């Protein structure tokens, strides 16, 4: 049975890093939580910040800062955006969550190889005349190792 589209399918949660606006489709997001105590793990995959237990499951957390080549600095508003990918949780640590916006119909041509952004970016949309880089956390596990 195919899933019915929901209102959230066309909503995007945005956050800013290094003056670039990033976004995740809201229907992929499970929860947004404060940064928990993370257990570091030896690095194999670029941008993996550590692990923590979420609802009993060992959950990896990627760092947007690390993926953009910066160090992590958890400010007051830092949080983890948790995605549920086929019953597997993946977190993305961000400086702060900006806003929840409706998806713009203006999609920009986005060439991955030409981008200076992280391998997270899968698409780019124009929102209030500013580009929003839509990202997919799980894809980094395939491309970032």
């Amino acid at each position, binding site marked *: 049975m195919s899933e019915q589209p929901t209102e959230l399918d066309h909503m995007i949660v945005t956050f800013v890093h290094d003056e670039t606006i990033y976004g995740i489709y809201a229907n992929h997001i499970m929860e947004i939580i404060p940064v928990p105590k993370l257990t570091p793990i030896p*690095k194999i995959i670029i941008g993996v910040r550590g*692990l923590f237990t979420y609802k*009993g499951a060992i959950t990896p957390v990627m760092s947007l800062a690390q993926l953009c080549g910066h160090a992590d600095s958890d400010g007051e508003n830092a949080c983890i955006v948790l995605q549920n990918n086929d019953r597997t949780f993946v977190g993305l640590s961000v400086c702060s969550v900006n806003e929840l916006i409706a998806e713009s119909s203006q999609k920009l041509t986005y060439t991955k190889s030409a981008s200076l952004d992280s391998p997270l970016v899968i698409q780019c949309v124009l929102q209030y005349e500013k580009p929003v880089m839509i990202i997919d956390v799980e894809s980094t596990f395939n491309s970032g190792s």
Partner: protein
Amino acid sequence: MGFFSTDMESLVEEYQREAIELMEEFNNCLTRFSRSGSIAQKDINSLFRIVHTIKSSSAMIGLQAMSTCTHRMEDLLLIFRDDTKRIDGNESRITDLLYTYGDYITAETSAMSEADFSPSATEPLLEAINNELNYFAGAESTAEHSAASVPELPKNPESEERDAATYKVIFRDECNMINVRAFQLVKQLRPHCTSLSSMPADFEKKSAAEQIAKNGLILTIVTEQIDEIKKLLAASPYIKEYLDIDTEEKAPSLPVNTPVEEDDTSGYTTKFVTVAWEKIQGMQNITGDLITAYTLLKSGMREKNIVKEAEDDLLALRKFLAVLEMLVDAVSMAPVSSIASPYYRLIRDMSKTEKKQVEFSIFGEELELDRNLLDLMSSPLIHLLRNAVDHGIESPAERLAAGKPANGKVSLSVAIFGGSARFIVADDGGGIDPEIILKKAKDLNLLVKPESEYSQSEIFKFIFSPGFTTNKTANQYSGRGVGMDVVQKSVDSLGGSVDVKSTVGVGTSFIIEVPVTMSSTECLSFSVGQYPCLVPARSVDKVCALHDVQDNLTILDGGLWLRDKTMIPVFDLFEMFSEPSSTECCIIVIHAAGQRAALLTGVISGEQTAVERPLPPMLASLYRKKFGVSGCSIIGSGKLALIINSELLLQNHHGEGTGHYE
């Protein structure tokens, strides 16, 4: 409204649950039959009982065509039940027919959940069964079993009216604890029956009482004491009436004013109950959480120096937890043989269709693995087995021409190794030609470096790319390039890995390794720089401070070795994890699979009971391969520690011979 009315929902669900169980047993009987080439009386009796139950149950929920078709199958089985020798010489045809019947029941049972369900046509199957009945009844019949009109068969003297019956039992309205009464009735009748099944079957379920009150208790009985059964039913003070479903004859009920004896025997036991898998998983998780909570509690008490005061209580608690864990493990495991039937069936059917001669064996059928894992592995294994017959095994003529026996061999081996289950699907067919794979990969623009730089192992990985196939034509089994990528995805989702070994003309093996749920393990805990780690105590030979064995350490070929009776390689975990070396280090000598090695670690911080949790699927395979990390466990203060599995570590770096991690 669909085929079933809404008030039949629970009855249909119960039917489906029962049919799934029965068809599993049905297929197991057929697997034994097709493997041994002859049918045991016990299996024929089981098949007869199953078919009889399905006949009655399907009639009960209004599936008349299914019931009629099943009735004819029952007639056919009756012939073999009376004389199994009559099947001799007809084994293959009868097995095919039984499999077809089983497929039909399974497909219908599954389709019943759909809102737009409507019963499938049974005519072709009915005709096939009738043809066999004609054949065995001695009627005019050709070897091809032409579709002649089906005469009414003479009634078997042991017809089901005499020795098999289905009753709908209605309990009195004032009868309390109706499911308990039903259970007691079944218990009372069972000694007089050759077989007895009931719907509902599980009287402990909350819905059972409601279902019996609404639809009655359906009893399917095979017995030689039908009069005794009727007498017992008539004598029960709780029964209002009972109806013989086959004859639709109502049996006399006791006068309404017969006093209903009230006793309070609500305690009863059944030997087997069906439990939803989610509940077992819930039990597994909560048991793991309890053990973790115990570990954290003990660690907190140790920090406060109050362990001694509660030592006896802690010991008792640990013992109870160990028993609980053992029981939960026992219910969540199933033998590999429990999923073997479809594999035997697949190979049998494919061998016929593809006109190939295939001997199929399963090694390790007796091994017990987590039921969920077995279920999840079923689809990739079926795909690999299908490929082995379709692409691997050559035709008998080709095999003979290549100097091989006409019979090809396909096997599935299952083993547990180092915290993982290993499944190997092997065939002695034509093998995979790496040159053909590389050429196809080039055509599909999959190459990311010069052709000459690809190792054989890298070339074989291309077959897991979506849409990759070297087959020019597709058949009913494969060739469309769909599947191997699905195998890879399924294995990835379990945090496992898949490897291919193949030699042209000799055969191919697909080796899948997936982590298995481990029970709690006693571990040594230590840190490597910022990373907390655990190593299972069962694989530890000894622990010593680095400075105590400094003189026994040697660097050979750029790797570190320890002289400890013999020279053993040292895995420098600091180097592996890219952490700066510590001034205070320990050496842990480990062993696994007949090999020994040493780990260079930080200071040992103590012992810990660890409940292993799998790493997230996207990390699991990499960490297993690179670091021998099989999972992780929650330790004090809610942190996680990596569990270093000696078997994995030694296996992954076996043959390097330098003791140096690369």
